[in-house]
């Protein structure tokens, strides 16, 4: 029965080639838009994931603290579970770093009799602790330590970056769901048209004692082939797009170099096509009655 169902499905696809081709192209375009969205979300997500490794906070200590007091503060900071590494920067070392940073504009520091920089502690956080809320809470905890004058970090950048990440993810998901529904609808419409065109044939099947499975199978196969082909076309499209446009652009625009193509996700496209195609076809056939 299965081989016969496949034969009927392939015959029907070839017989109704234009309507099927149009559906495949429509699905491919939908999948391509979906893939570009997923690629953007994936890269934004990847970029924000590398942030914790680079993110640091500075704790400035009050003037005139004894080395014993500084050690105490370092010990308290080290005990905080959110903190990965702690580096004490004495005011003299801070001045050296500033001078090396200023290089040719070092003259701005001329005339200073005293080193105005305070002792400071640079801390790096554990990956899971880098987030707008957790960093804010940590900053408040650190400020309460006796001897700490100020805690600095790029608060606005951090919160906006996370908002962008969450926003993109949410919008991406909504967009992907909408496009998935669109693909199901395309498969549904195609199979529905084919189903109506073969209505007389289906009635004959029923009279000859065909089971619902026998009647449904060719349409389900047809839906899955249309979905698979659409997914495969979009896979070819997204790979071509990446290698011809993005890789070429990255030669002149360095930002494009950081765009990563997730091959394992792209391979998912034909599989998603099969799933959505089967769903659309199953809805189109609906409940068969004898």
């Amino acid at each position, binding site marked *: 029965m299965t081989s016969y169902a496949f034969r009927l499905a392939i015959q029907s696809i070839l017989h109704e080639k234009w309507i099927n081709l149009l559906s495949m192209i429509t699905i491919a375009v939908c999948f391509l838009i979906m893939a570009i969205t997923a690629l953007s979300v994936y890269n934004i997500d990847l970029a924000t994931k590398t942030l914790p490794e680079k993110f640091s906070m500075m704790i400035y200590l009050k003037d005139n603290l004894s080395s014993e007091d500084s050690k105490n503060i370092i010990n308290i900071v080290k005990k905080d579970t959110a903190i990965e590494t702690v580096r004490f920067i004495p005011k003299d070392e801070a001045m050296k770093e500033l001078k090396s940073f200023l290089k040719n504009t070092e003259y701005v520091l001329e005339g200073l009799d005293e080193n105005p920089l305070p002792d400071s502690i640079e801390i790096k956080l554990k990956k899971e602790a880098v987030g707008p809320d957790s960093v804010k809470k940590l900053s408040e905890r650190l400020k309460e330590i006796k001897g700490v004058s100020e805690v600095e970090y790029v608060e606005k950048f951090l919160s906006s970056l996370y908002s962008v990440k969450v926003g993109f993810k949410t919008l991406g998901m909504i967009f992907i769901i909408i496009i998935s529904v669109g693909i199901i609808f395309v498969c549904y419409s195609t199979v529905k048209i084919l189903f109506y065109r073969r209505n007389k044939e289906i*009635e*004959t099947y029923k*009279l000859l004692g065909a089971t619902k499975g026998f009647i449904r199978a060719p349409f389900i196969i047809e839906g899955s082939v249309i979905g698979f082909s659409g997914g495969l076309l979009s896979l070819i499209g997204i790979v071509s797009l990446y290698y011809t446009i993005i890789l070429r652009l990255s030669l002149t625009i360095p930002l494009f170099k950081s765009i990563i193509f997730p091959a394992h996700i792209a391979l998912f496209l034909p599989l998603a096509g099969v799933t959505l195609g089967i769903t659309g076809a199953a809805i189109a056939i609906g409940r068969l009655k*004898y």
Partner: protein
Amino acid sequence: MIQFQSVSKHYDTHTALRNITFSVDKGEMLFVTGPSGSGKTTLLKLIYVAEKHDEGTISIAGWELDKLKESSIPLIRRNIGFVFQDFRLLNNRNVFENVALALRIRGVGEKELKTHVFDSLKTVNLRHKSDSYPDELSGGEQQRVAIARAIVTEPTVILADEPTGNIDPDLSAGIIRLFKDINTKGATILIATHNRELFRNSGKRVLKLDNGNLVGDEKG
């Protein structure tokens, strides 16, 4: 084989069959006749469960139709061969495939299928037309293909609804002869027709319907 006990079928505006009682023995061949609208087609539809009766009981080859689940309908239809006035052949498939369809539905393997299809086409004398498409055949030939499809599964019951309605009157006798030959091999055959010439002097039983009532049950 077939039993109708006080069967009635109502539609919104009229009653198609009223209190019908009859039974058909295994291997019997009979005609159901009456004018247009007398209920012949409805009676056949009740047998192959295209319609459900409203009153009474129907039993086909041991199946009680009152207690029949929807999933069992294909099984009961596999015991029945159909021949319709409009042939109901698939124009996009050749004669062989049209006849083979009934076997494919039953999951018969290719080798066995070929033997049965060619045997069946031989019975209706159309073995040489197996590669032709229905629209390349005459009305009589198309009806013989439909008969070949009906008998290829060796059903216990064959139903024919106006089988000569769309063919040349000269060929009608040949079609009926064919049914008689098939009947001699043991199939129970019910032929619905309004053409009296088909059963006159046939020696077969004739059920007469008029306005949904069974008004006669006699030898033709």
